[in-house]
């Protein structure tokens, strides 16, 4: 197990290196400069700026410098926001995005599994149809429309929740719901189909033949086995939440990290692009590893160690 994790970590470093390299060169291949404006800067200032941010060195040297800074986990100053380092941006933005993301993941999982389970247990009854209509809506309505819709109904029409900002728990509900809606719908469908499959399995009949009641069967035998596909969806779920948060953070004026992910590219804010990409990549890679570990905990058939034979 330890050996396996060690090996995975090694692969992660390799993957990260590939990501850093590809991002770096793609970013630099894109036309446009972080300092371009309507008025062209005097060449001297332009040169000074470039020297200050190390952009005057050869591309390869910049790349090497960058690799070193990634190793040191110090992404340097933002080119767009004066006096702020990328590390500052991340450490200020991430806790917010994290809280939002966790709330959304929690909602997506809790509501998704609940809806899916109800739909499967009441297969082809009205509960099933209702749950699946909700799921189809959740999948087909883009999150920004969901966000505006929720905002309009709950904040403006009924005034029960705040329109935007990130201040109290009440402020977090709408954005978390909007962010959770698509993955929630996905999880609901996944849970439903997976539950239906599990319900048809012989071991459920075995459980029934033992005299267990339907609650006991669902809790002990069905849900756990039906959760496998859901757990393996956790990786994509985390990335969906991470990338989806940009739109939601924008609409609700939330000072999270998702915003930087996109605006840094428009701004050609090289250090932020790289810093946020590396940060998100590490986050994703680690979460995928942890999801795999979780998977092996739920399903004893899956062995992490890649030893052969058994």
């Amino acid at each position, binding site marked *: 197990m330890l050996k396996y994790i060690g090996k995975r970590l090694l692969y992660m470093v390799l993957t990260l290196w590939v990501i850093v390299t590809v991002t770096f060169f793609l970013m630099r291949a*894109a*036309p*446009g*400069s972080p*300092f*371009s*404006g*309507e*008025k*062209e*800067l*005097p060449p*001297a*200032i332009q040169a*000074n700026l470039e020297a*200050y941010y190390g952009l005057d060195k050869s591309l390869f040297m910049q790349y090497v410098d960058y690799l070193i800074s990634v190793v040191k*986990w*110090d992404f340097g100053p933002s080119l*767009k*926001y*004066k*006096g*702020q380092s990328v*590390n*500052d941006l*991340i450490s200020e933005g*991430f*806790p917010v995005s*994290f*809280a939002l993301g*966790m*709330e959304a*993941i*929690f909602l997506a999982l*809790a509501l998704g599994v609940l809806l899916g389970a109800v739909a499967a247990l009441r297969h082809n009854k009205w509960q099933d149809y209702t749950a699946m209509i909700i799921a189809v809506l959740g999948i087909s309505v883009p999150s920004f429309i969901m966000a*505006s819709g929720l905002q*309009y109904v709950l904040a*403006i029409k009924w005034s029960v929740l705040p*329109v*935007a*900002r*990130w*201040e*109290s*728990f009440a402020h977090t509900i709408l954005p978390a719901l909007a962010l959770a809606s698509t993955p929630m719908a996905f999880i609901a469908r996944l849970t439903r189909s997976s539950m239906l499959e599990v319900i048809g399995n012989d071991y459920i009949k075995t459980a029934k033949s033992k005299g267990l009641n339907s609650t006991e069967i669902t809790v002990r035998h069905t849900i756990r086995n039906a*959760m496998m596909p*859901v*757990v393996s969806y*956790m990786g994509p779920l985390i990335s969906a939440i991470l990338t989806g948060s940009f739109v939601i953070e*924008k609409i*609700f*004026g939330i*000072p999270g990290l998702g915003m930087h992910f996109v605006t840094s590219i428009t701004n050609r804010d090289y250090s932020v692009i790289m810093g946020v990409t590396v*940060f998100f990549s590490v986050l994703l890679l*680690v979460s995928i*590893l942890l*999801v795999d*570990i*979780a998977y092996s905990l*739920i399903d004893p058939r899956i062995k992490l160690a890649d030893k052969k034979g058994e």
Partner: protein
Amino acid sequence: MKKKLLLFSILLVFSVILAACGGDDDSGEEGTSDNSGDNGESTSDNGGESSAEQVFKANIASEPFSLNPSLANDATSSAVLLQTFEGLTRIGPEGEPQEAMASEIETSDDLKKYTFTIREDAKWSNGDPVTAQDFEYAWKWALDPNNNSQYAYQLYYVKNAEAANTGEGNLEDVGVTAVDEQTLEVELENPTPYFLELTAFYTYFPVNSKIAKENEEWYADAGENYVSNGPFKMTEWSHNDSITLEPNEEYWDKDAVKLDRIEFAMINDFNTELNSFKQGEFDWAGSPFGSLPTEAIPSLKEDGSLNVEPIAGTYWYKFHTEKEPFNNVNIRKAFAYAIDRQGIVENITKAGQVPAMAAVPPTMFSDNEEGYFDAVNIEKAKEHLQKGIEELGYDSVEDMPAVTLSYNTSESHAKIAQAIQDMWKENLGVEVELSNAEWAVYIDQLHQGDYQIGRMGWLGDFNDPINFLELYKEKGGNNDTRWHSEEFASLLEESQTETDSEKRTEMLKEAEGILMDEMPIAPIYFYTNAWVQDENLKDVVMSGLGDVQLKWAHFE
């Protein structure tokens, strides 16, 4: 810091796992409530009704580039700096520069030397006196090429400033000298009739040199190091989230200041901004702090809540005058005349914009509402097209090289470009391709001359027509059109030394006449500020440039 980040990443993933197992559901909630607790404390009294409270709340959409006036280069920073800082002059409620930090201003006869006497009671928000040295320090700091100020060129009117900034000269030679604590002498490169407009601009603001010398990063956050000399001081800056200003008790004119607090939020979504305004969470929605969603404007107009004020800005199309077919003035004119400007402002932009038939906005030249040509004149356009085709030796319109219209990616620019594409097709029979690129790419293309017709807008930095006209003075630099006219350039040159303001205006108008006759640019419309505001909010001063001062603002 680094460790914290790593820890966070691990924590996130770990709690995801917990959630996955269904074992520990509250890990997510914990994070949330922690955070909201933090924020809740600082702004807990946010929910209260504002009108009697003298608290002004608005949205500035995004994080300001920098709240160091020497580094700022954007409207967002400006919206904050105009409340927190004060220059030698300030644009008063009537739109004219008035004494601010300077109590007395002396001008030499040749208009090349200004002597400012700093107010005795001028103080920084920490109680330090504002000195002439603070101005000298700030200007030279901005000009120091090592400090990478992207707006240093605003100071080029000062003698030797450009040379110092480009590294060809010495900072010591820059024509700004603190004679004593109270006296600031400024020598200019050329006579600059609008110099007192400039001293109200943020690049000319002072910086507390005592603090800035001790702490290079004084402007990165709110706190004891962030001191300002304007009507308000910044008490909180939550990056990418909000900025809070409170009255500066040390301000010389503090009795004029009525607001108890200003709260700027940073929500980069204009629908949300308007929705929050409707819920009473903002007292202002729209320009210049934020913006109104175009689709909401008609209904706001209908219920009478919409305010529209023309500002010093022009939306125009640039022609590349060295590329066929736009090297021909008649072709340029044909394209310019065939645009139905009224149609565009009525059906597309909708926020009370004014059709532009001139380069300089009517806030500077009031008769420019009429302009130099008709808002649309298809007959004339066709005539010019025919003439141009003949001059260039084409057989017909079809023979003309393919034309591409470029703009930076944005829904509103796209709508305008599509409409104009239709007009050109219908009115001139010319098929034009559209091409768009994101801003950073687009601006590079324009600067490199890699375009035929390109969209651009210009918002005045200071209230003088020269600001619009000098863009086309030199061939290189910012003049992407590559157009040049000796006559135009010398008229601008002469206007600098003209002390009689009426004569000077005439010269500038003549120059503008040349520009509109040669037509390297096709003006489309003049910008406006469109906004909605709390009915009880009074005495907000909006200058001709469109920026807002809250010094005198209050709720009734």
